[in-house]
């Protein structure tokens, strides 16, 4: 049977790459003694697939992987056992059975939501260096109005062309149709964008476009991106889409 596992990737493991996380989960299943289904052949491997790789440096409370497991196992118990062996950096949030014949998470995926803490950019803009923003007197009101003006301006455009570099070269892409929701308050940018293998918008790309419309210098290493949720069609979170 197929199960969908929702998990969080936290601060202390944010620097792991996607392949590292895959290998990590394989071993978690083994340590938790989950009975898995394996591929055929001489070197059988666990049947699992992730909804969407998460970039290095990004944390998440809405990651998904689908795994084929032997039927007849208590899913709540599996969830508990996985949490016992996955350390502090990950948390398994739920384990649900996927309906027979349902799409895999990676195929069902349509949208992703992110929350981006950009307060340190405000601190830079206010010339406070890299100091602790929680305790510094950054004027977020003014920052908010600048960023919001940029967002309105951006959303009023019919096309937002950005250059995208892939293996086959650099090309211009219109990201306007990929933006579903975009707002900013108190130094937090919230966005809902299209996601998936062929229509993916990276939060970093969108943020760069926003700040390009301001005098604030966009510095990738001064923001904290959290992926909040992954959705199927109709903005249904993946753990509620074709799951029992």
């Amino acid at each position, binding site marked *: 049977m197929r199960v969908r596992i929702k998990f969080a990737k936290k601060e202390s493991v944010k620097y792991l790459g996607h392949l590292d996380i895959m290998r990590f989960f394989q071993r978690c299943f083994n340590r938790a003694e989950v009975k898995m289904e394996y591929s055929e052949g001489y070197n059988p491997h666990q049947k699992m697939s992730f909804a969407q790789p998460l970039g290095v440096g990004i944390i998440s409370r809405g990651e998904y992987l689908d795994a084929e497991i032997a039927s007849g196992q208590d899913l709540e118990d599996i969830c*508990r056992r996985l949490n016992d062996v996955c350390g502090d950096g990950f948390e398994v949030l739920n384990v649900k059975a996927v309906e027979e014949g349902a799409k895999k998470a990676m195929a069902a995926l349509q949208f992703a939501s992110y929350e981006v803490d950009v307060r340190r950019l405000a601190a830079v803009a206010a010339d406070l260096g890299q100091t602790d923003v929680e305790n510094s007197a950054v004027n977020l009101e003014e920052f908010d109005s600048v960023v919001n003006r940029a967002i309105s301006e951006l959303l009023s455009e019919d096309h937002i062309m950005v250059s995208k570099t892939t293996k086959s070269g650099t090309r211009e892409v219109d990201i306007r149709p990929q933006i579903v929701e975009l707002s900013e308050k108190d130094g937090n940018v919230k966005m809902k964008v299209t996601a998936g293998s062929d229509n993916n918008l990276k939060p970093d790309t969108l943020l760069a476009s926003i700040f390009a419309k301001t005098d604030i210098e966009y510095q990738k290493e001064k923001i904290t991106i*959290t992926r909040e949720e992954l959705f199927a069609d109709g903005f249904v979170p993946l753990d509620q889409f074709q799951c029992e």
Partner: protein
Amino acid sequence: MSINNDKTITDTKRRYALPERILLNVEKPARYTGGEINSVMKDKANVNVRFAMCFPDLYEIGMSHLGIQILYSMLNEREDVWCERVYSPWSDLEMIMKEESIPLFALESQDPVKEFDFLGITLQYEMAYTNVLQILDISQIPLHAKERGEGMPIVIGGGPCVYNPEPLADFFDLFYIGEGETVYFELLDVYKKNRDNGGSRKDFLKAAAQVEGIYVPSLYEVAYNEDDTIKAFTPIEAAPLMVKKQVVTDLSSAHYPMKPVIPYVQATQDRAVLEIQRGCIRGCRFCQAGMIYRPLRTRSLETLKKYAKEIIKNTGYEELSLTSLSTSDYPEFAQLMDFLVEEFKNKKVNISLPSLRIDEFALDVMSKVQDVKKSSLTFAPEAGTQRMRDVINKGITIEDIMYGSEMAFKGGWNKVKLYFMLGLPTEREEDVQGISDLAEQIAELYYDTVPKEQRSGKVQITVSTSFFIPKPFTPFQWEPMYQPNVYLDKAAYLNDSIKAQLNKKSIKYNWHDAKTSVIEGLLARGDRRVGKIIEAVYKKGATFDAWTDHFDYDKWISAVEEQGADVPDMDFYVYRRRELDEILPWDFIDAGVSKNFMKREFENSKNEKVTLNCKESCSGCGARVFGGGICLTH
């Protein structure tokens, strides 16, 4: 059904030594952030001794090493000690750390290494020596032991290279000679006692020299003859004349890491490791490991069964590798394999078996645990003719190889790897030719053995040669090396010869870099004065010499040539035959295996006389003094 509500998105907010702007701009930042499953966190306020254990190479290499996992786990069992790990930063990060003056840190606490009580560095291969200086340098610890003040860590070296620690003598406060499981606790107790008594760094070094197996280079003076050879090697301040190698006598009761640290970043050896025995009975005359790890000691079958199950359960690894110098020599190998195959067949755990001698049983076992079509057979005849194999005491005959190959071909294998050495003592042209002929014979055997309709393509034979390096504590320790161009001529001769064989298309030939080999020879065989060369080449920017694309021979040679009259040259250290009565730089180490035995074996090699292995007959090497292992039973 969300559980474990005490877990939050910002879990343990680990504090990193490197800021995010650096971590996001270096290759594989998870090499530097620690926090792996089974890594040990302690409260530094509650420990007395902080130990940084370093493998001076990239994280992925260092995390593959069993010895560090053993010591890490063993030291952390002590409540008063916190042992953490340190690896070499890759060049991208090294540059940033130097530019911004960020001191090297340990992975667990992320605290600077220079704040620790000890910095232990394992010396597994000579070509990592420049990395050792890099570690000290970016840790902001003075390179020279004599320049380190009271607050600086005690820098201690261990591992196989300490059987000649002299080229690194200036850079280390201590060396631990032998197996780490025996006197580390005693050494740490001496350290604590000295500190409690208000003793100085020097007081500790003097006290440490009294711990068996500990060598304190600053307590020995070396005098040289006119011809640059060693005149006298003299202990001062009551340090012992000879330092005795440490040996675990009962391997079954020795500490073993049941919960090894599991790296997030894929290690080079990404699997569970089960050390089934230590030492080797074979006595190959070129092999340093075969001499310095004597006597052979085995872990009991019951211990291994228990460890295998437990380690796989604790790690979730899909592969278990049996490790030893010669796996087939494990006395209960058949029972062990039966157990492992049975235990793991439904758990999808692969068993890997390096260092296996190919015979009927081995092939049967291998066909159970490996994909015959994909795997290859490995033979290490080491030399191409029987005469040459007798010289090096490699107890493998052409019949063994042909018989093993024939059975393997019948069993469906069609890939064979053959390992040889070039430049062995007494080597003649016909010995080099013999390598080529042996490869050809095996290729022909394949076509004779396997009928056309059963062949899955050509037989693939890979011949690899390394250049022989006479290592300390081997019967060949007095032998000279050749100049790089001589080695390359030999490799070229062999290459031409293989290209002239009938089945040349089935035989692939690789050879090692000759220039790396002679520098390895310099570092393996040098004395204290070689430290100046290592320092000079490091200052020219050399690091990661074990990585082919980083190694720069010209830097090394110019570092050798720039030294004044007080440091001898390559001719002296590498290309010279040493006299049997010469004081060798490593003579102060008592490795159990005696110098007389090595002289005897050197003589036997000249007479092409084979010495029986430890199971067949005791050759009186001297390792019996340790009172353990095979010496007790045979």
